[in-house]
């Protein structure tokens, strides 16, 4: 029993001891961490000490100042050496920097910008960047090695934009609207705004539209290495004759340029105009007697129209004839006269009738409605007058024969 008690007391004592020692050690460790930091320590690093760029490109990278000491520092920075003709400076977002404040335990990031001269020879160039604390205790020096590679190699890269289209040739009538779909693929690393140009035949309307949207655009913003589909809407001139028409689409942003060749094949339009020379669509006719009206057919399309025939929608027992009955071919802009003979039924009632004439050409039909007024034939009127004259003459004869009795 006693033994048992003593074990228990011991374990409690031990636990208390362990927990005490643990808390002590942790405070000790924290003490150690701060105490391990030197009073003053500052380092400088370049983001990429060695780079390779194509000729003509600029350099832009970060300089990282890191304060590892316990006190804040002011650091002077300078570019001490640079190849001849290069422009280089250290910047922040706003200023050109000669000195920077780095709080204890924090980083300061400055931007190094360097611009090689117009046409640098390929090869390795070096820039020296030096930094020192204001009191001169810490001095740091970093070397940036830039390897400029020949322009020929980078030419493709710098063009930077590619145009592709799945359907470069479209076909249709002159009055149709054509829409090409073009994929603009930017190979540039950075964002860019591309201007869109198109060159087509005179009097044609060419517009750029975003895919599936109806607004017109003239420029396009693309992120680096992204692509976007652009629709090219083409309205041919209504007078354009049938034929092939090339269209050049160009996309450019600075030096980056892309070109695509498109083609439209016009098959011509089909349009017929039907009318009468006097524009009068009414006609007088007598029962059973043919009445004549002249009609003209004009090809207003840009393609020749073949096999134009005529159909008439007329009352029963009426006759409608055409001279000639059909036109074999009508060239664009050509005019042809047609004589229409309308013969009303012998017993047609007087009054107005509608007779429809349908002109059926190649891919074009025209309906023309004529108003036929059937009038009474005057022949019976004369016969009636003759009868009356005859009867009155008979009466007069009677008067003469029997009168004066």
């Amino acid at each position: 029993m006693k033994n048992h008690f003593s074990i228990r007391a011991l374990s409690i004592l031990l636990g208390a001891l362990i927990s005490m020692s643990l808390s002590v050690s942790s405070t000790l460790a924290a003490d150690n961490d701060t105490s391990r930091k030197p009073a003053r320590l500052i380092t400088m690093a370049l983001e990429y000490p060695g780079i390779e760029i194509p000729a003509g490109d600029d350099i832009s990278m970060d300089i990282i100042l890191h304060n590892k000491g316990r006190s804040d520092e002011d650091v002077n920075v300078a570019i001490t050496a640079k190849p001849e003709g290069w422009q280089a400076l250290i910047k922040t977002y706003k200023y050109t920097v000669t000195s920077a404040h780095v709080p204890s335990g924090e980083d300061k990031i400055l931007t190094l910008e360097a611009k090689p001269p117009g046409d640098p020879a390929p090869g390795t160039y070096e820039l020296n960047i030096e930094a020192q604390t204001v009191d001169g205790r810490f001095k740091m020096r970093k070397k940036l090695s830039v390897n400029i590679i020949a322009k020929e190699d980078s030419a493709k890269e710098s063009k930077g934009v590619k145009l592709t289209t799945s359907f470069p040739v479209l076909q249709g009538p002159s009055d149709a609207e054509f829409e090409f779909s073009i994929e603009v693929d930017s190979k540039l690393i950075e964002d860019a705004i591309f201007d869109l140009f198109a060159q087509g035949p005179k009097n044609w309307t060419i517009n750029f539209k975003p895919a599936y949207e109806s607004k017109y655009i003239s420029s396009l913003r693309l992120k680096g290495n992204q692509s976007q589909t652009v629709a090219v809407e083409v309205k041919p001139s209504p007078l354009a004759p049938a034929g092939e028409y090339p269209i050049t689409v160009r996309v450019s942003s600075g030096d980056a340029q892309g070109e695509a060749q498109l083609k439209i094949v016009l098959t011509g339009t089909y349009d017929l105009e039907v009318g009468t020379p006097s524009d009068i669509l009414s006609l007088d006719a007598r029962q059973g007697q043919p009445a004549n009206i002249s009609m003209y057919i004009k090809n207003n399309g840009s393609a020749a129209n073949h096999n134009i025939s005529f159909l008439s929608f007329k009352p029963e027992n009426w006759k409608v004839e055409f001279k000639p009955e059909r036109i074999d071919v009508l060239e664009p802009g050509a005019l042809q006269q047609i004589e229409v003979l309308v013969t009303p039924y012998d017993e047609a009632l007087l009054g107005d009738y509608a007779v429809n004439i349908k002109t059926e050409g190649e891919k074009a039909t025209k309906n023309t409605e004529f108003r036929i007024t059937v009038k009474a034939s005057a022949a019976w009127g004369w016969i009636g007058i003759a009868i009356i004259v005859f009867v009155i003459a008979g009466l007069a004869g009677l008067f003469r024969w029997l009168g004066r009795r």
Partner: protein
Amino acid sequence: MSGIKPILKKELADHFSSYRFIILFALITMVSMITVYMVGLNIQRELNGVAKPRFVFLMLFTSSGTLFSLVDFVAFFGPLVGLILGFDTINRERNEGTLSKLLSQPIFRDTIINGKFLAGVVVIGVMISSIVLLISGLGLIVVGVIPGVEEVGRILIYLIISIVYVSFWLGIAILFSIIFRSVATSALAALAVWIFFSFFISMGANAIAGALVSDTTQDDPEVVLKQIKIQRALSLASPLILYVDATATIIDPMRKTTRTIIQMGMLEQLSMARFAGPLSLSQSFFVVLPYIVSLLAITIVSFAVSYLIFMRQEIRSI
């Protein structure tokens, strides 16, 4: 025709002062006024909802109020005027012995019959014109529509046809008054002819057409049409039918034919419906011209026959 003036004057004076004429005229005036009043009320109801009514004025004559329109009235009872004016023209003079007295005057015999017929025509003209004018005036008040030139033209033609039509019956009456000595006989004969032509002919035409065309296939439009054609051809022998067809067509611009039944194809209907418009006056006139000519011809012939008989009759022996 030198001595016709005094005869005409005397006859007109006789007509206008006779009770017969006054009663007749009063009766007809009353009936037509009642008719037009009814029609006036009816037109307002008929035109309710019609966007742009045309030829409203003519409807005064054609629209039937409660019983009949004016056109129908003149067609049926206009002949009575002619008959009553003429049935005793000659035989009354003869019976009273005034005819020989008249002929002993320096007057030619043809002057007498010409003058009597002309006097009748003038009376008929005055009567019908005054009725038409009365109706027009009343219509202006009741309906408040002013007739256009074309409407006036149509009414004028209607007036002329009506005068010719009633004159025909006057001629028939005069003919009977020459043939029959008895006034009663001539009156009855004239009435019989009137009833025969006005009522029996259309019935008889119906019966004959039915007999000629077998009635078994009533549904066949061809047969029905043939039957109607026969019936029409026969009934055209009646002056009443001639008159009704002519006036109905001249006074209704929308009527394009005098026929009552017309065969029309589907397309024809469509074609006509496209420009459903009235006929012009000249076209309507051409449609009814044969009817007018026929009426005029039978009128002249009926007068010529009575003239012929009267001129060749023995008069002094009575």
